[in-house]
């Protein structure tokens, strides 16, 4: 692995709320730590006791399969006591506010809270009210830092470095926290980032983040080392962001004829869950020579283990 940690070994933040708050050094600490867990996760005995006696609460206000299970597994492999709150049965459904929920949980002395919430900034609000570390597992459209970190780790695993790579992020940028976190992180690590989306799904003034914007996908992926696809949410069709799935696929789906414009050895990424035949051709998604989608999931556990370990300390 070519991740160098030159400077301090301590993270600058108490919470992991977003990539925006992290320094390059912070990122290197996390990625370094995560890379150590990759082998462990492939071995027979996966259990450590680094977080023995620590309590981790997963607070998921939005349905999630992979992120929640990934965080749960990560905590358990490190020996923490992991509790996942089922929001549908909880007091929140009865009208309790986020702050009151935070106070209640805080009284139980957790060491770490992992939160996913449909509102941007929910993790920031929670972090102001609890004594333990808060890890953001996705807040509204704002950030999904562990996803960006696992994407970075996946890229480094394959390409040894991020600096100098040309990376296209394609799809529903407007509603995507994954896109925002990735833009911050990839920029920070020295990549050139292209954003590809129909104008209706492009956030205002996104170019001020230091990215190139394209509404023509072929131009956007041209000569890219990595093509990162985003999930298109079906409800976007009903509100006239787009006309139809088939037209979207035609213009913005990753198809064999569009991937040709990228570099020959370009890698395909997707944070999941995928809509096959809408944003990505099903054969491309499964192409073992190009697609690293499964590897993203695998390294996700390692990244979350690293985050839990670092922020629990």
């Amino acid at each position, binding site marked *: 692995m070519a991740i160098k940690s030159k400077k301090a070994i301590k993270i600058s933040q108490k919470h992991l709320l977003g990539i925006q708050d992290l320094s390059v050094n912070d990122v290197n600490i996390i990625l370094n730590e995560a890379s150590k867990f990759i082998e462990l996760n492939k071995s027979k005995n996966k259990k450590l006791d680094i977080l023995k006696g620590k309590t981790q609460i997963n607070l998921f206000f939005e349905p999630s399969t992979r992120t929640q299970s990934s965080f749960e597994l990560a905590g358990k492999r490190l020996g923490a006591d992991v509790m996942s709150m089922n929001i549908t049965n909880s007091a929140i459904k009865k009208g309790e506010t986020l702050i009151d929920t935070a106070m209640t949980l805080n009284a139980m002395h957790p060491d770490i809270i992992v939160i996913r919430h449909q509102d941007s*900034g929910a993790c920031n609000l929670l972090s102001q009210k609890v004594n333990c570390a808060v890890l953001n597992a996705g807040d509204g459209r704002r950030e999904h830092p562990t996803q960006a970190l696992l994407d970075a780790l996946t890229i480094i695993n394959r390409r040894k470095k991020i600096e100098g790579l040309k990376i296209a992020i394609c799809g529903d940028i407007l509603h995507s926290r994954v896109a925002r976190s990735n833009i911050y992180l990839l920029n920070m690590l020295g990549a050139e980032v292209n954003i590809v989306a129909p104008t209706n799904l492009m956030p205002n003034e996104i170019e001020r983040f230091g990215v190139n914007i394209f509404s023509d996908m072929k131009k956007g992926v041209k000569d890219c080392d990595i093509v990162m696809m985003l999930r298109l949410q079906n409800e976007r069709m009903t509100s006239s962001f787009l006309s139809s799935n088939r037209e979207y696929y035609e213009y913005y789906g990753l198809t064999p004829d569009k991937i040709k414009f990228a570099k020959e050895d370009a890698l395909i990424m997707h944070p999941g869950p995928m809509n096959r035949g809408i944003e990505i051709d099903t054969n491309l998604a499964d192409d073992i020579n190009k697609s690293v989608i499964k590897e993203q999931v695998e390294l996700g556990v390692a990244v979350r283990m690293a985050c839990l370990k670092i922020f629990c300390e």
Partner: protein
Amino acid sequence: MKKKYFINANIIDPYNSLNETGGLIIDENGKIEGVGKKVNTNNIPSREKVIDLKGKHIFPGLVDMRVFVGEPGFEYKENFRTLSEAALSGGVTSVVTMPNTNPVIDNVSIVDFLRRRGRDKSKINIFPTAALTINTEGENMTEFGLLQGKGIIGFTDGIKTIQNPRIMNRIMNSASDLNSLIIQHAEDAELSKDGMINDGIIATKLGLQGIPVSAELLILERDLTLLEYNNCRYHISQISSASSIEIIRERKSKVNFSCGVSINNLSLNENDIGDFKTFLKLSPPLRTEDDRNALVQGLVDETIDVIVSDHKPEDEENKRLTFAQAETGASGIETLLPLSLELYHNGSVKLETIIKALTSSPAKILKINKGNLSIGNDADFCIVDINKPWVVRKEKLISKSKNTPIEDKKLQGKVMNTFVNGEELFKAE
């Protein structure tokens, strides 16, 4: 009531083009008997007690055209008593209240209740508006004529905009027949749907749904076009962008109307929202620094007629939420004048222009005999030390709700005393 004599004050009364050092005499009935440089120790009987203001300023009592009071329905946010205490501490002696209460002020019987409460509990002059449409639903017009007869000063859906151009056209026709004042909050509901802050870099960064400037422009263009055909008394409640200023500047040469701005939009920009400060979730939203500068310029050249506090008290429970869930609006009546004075201290706007936008201009639009120091008028005025520094502290606010957008801000200029009908109702500690 005993006669009162003040001398050595810097008196600014834009209505009477008065800007001079002099005195003020209040008669036994609380009316203004004398004002200006001719009032000095030489012509005041020596037996009388004279108050030397030593260069402090006297302004007419402020007229705030956009104030939300919680009565009826939201008394826990603000009632008439707490509102008037808060207003007095900010030198405000007349307020125009918004109809977005529960129930909505949209019929004659509720106005009777409002008038009684306002009269019994309030120490300041309350000028209530009623809704333009029943329950502010934007469909059926309220009884402008009958409501005016009960003392309603103007008509607005407050936080809402008449979206339907056909209804707006008819409202203007009726208002023209009945000489009613229409106050529009200019925001297209479709373009601003689910929006929380200005649609720009900050919205993109924070992941919040944006409100584009076009949402405001569309309503301005529409209403000002309709106004060319049905000229009624029309006032735009608040504007927020540089493009709005351009439209208004251009249209003012064609039709008669007036326009306001919130002190928040004159003083703050979208960057102040920082890390999800819900107290800065406002409508219209705070926009860019360029927009703010254009608004200040609009005030200087009088494209903008009035400054309002847009005082919208919200309790902690409605603000200690995620940004999406938090209520819109900020408390501001207490800091309206001191925050406006910032524009004078930093050299952007002349003091007289600011005071005009806070006193005689709103009074003229409302057609009320307030906001001036004319002989024989009710002695509503405030004494202000325009240089006195102080810091806004949440716990020191008088309003029942503490949702100030400028917590811990250093201000220069403090209201020392406020008088209504010649009676001192507020005195600074």
